[in-house]
């Protein structure tokens, strides 16, 4: 798993590459939490799944955990470029109650 983080205004954009599972979700959690702690101006998080190959419930748990941090800042959690199999996992997990999916990064940035 590789995570590329960049800030655009009050939004942190995280490009997730590779596999997000039991082995890699601690690094996902740590990198995003470190960035959020360093930069208190960040309010929202957009996860870009263009390069994501696999996510399981460990990965979903790591995503939900970050929503809890954002909620304390009254921020929003969004996902873009979500492949169909991941969309189904998000649906089944109930994660879509707290995370909005947009077809593109541009659209997500416009709506936030």
């Amino acid at each position: 798993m590789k995570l590329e983080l960049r800030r655009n205004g009050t939004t942190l954009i995280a490009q997730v590459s590779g596999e997000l599972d039991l082995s890699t979700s601690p690094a996902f959690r740590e990198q995003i939490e470190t960035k959020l702690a360093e930069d208190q101006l960040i309010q929202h998080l957009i996860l870009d799944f263009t390069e994501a190959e696999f996510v399981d419930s460990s990965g979903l748990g790591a995503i939900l955990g970050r929503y809890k941090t954002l909620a304390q800042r009254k921020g929003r959690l969004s996902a873009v470029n979500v492949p169909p199999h991941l969309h189904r996992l998000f649906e089944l997990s109930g994660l879509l109650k707290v995370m909005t999916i947009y077809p593109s990064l541009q659209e997500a940035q416009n709506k936030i």
Partner: protein
Amino acid sequence: MKENYLKVTFPSLPENVSLSRVIVASFAAQLDFTLNELEEIRVATSEAVSNCVIHAYRQTSGEIRLELKIKDDTLQIKVLDQGCGISDLSLAKTPAYSTDPERMGLGLIFMESFMDEMTIESEPGQGTQVYMCKKPERSRSDHGTGQ
């Protein structure tokens, strides 16, 4: 399709969860699964093996045994551990039940949703055996149309 089997034992390390997915998906590819079905098998395997690492051995060392079989055009997966076992199986099956705030308690739900059958046998202090099976949808259709 001839019967086939594979048995492999590996340490309960988080790094081996992805290895188990690769093994199962490669073995399953001998049957006529769609890419979507293979993805479902990968998720179910990941959940079963992750549970061994997290819950059965509680991040300590132990062995996980993966037994795969192809029989009657069906993939059978057994994931066995000799960890702490599950004291309350019905509680563990409750959606969103988890002993860890960073986890969603969806592992068993995903296994049940993505596989045709899923059963768990567990004895506290003795270990747990998860059995899952799945038949390719295309094989079912072929039988249905007499092809």
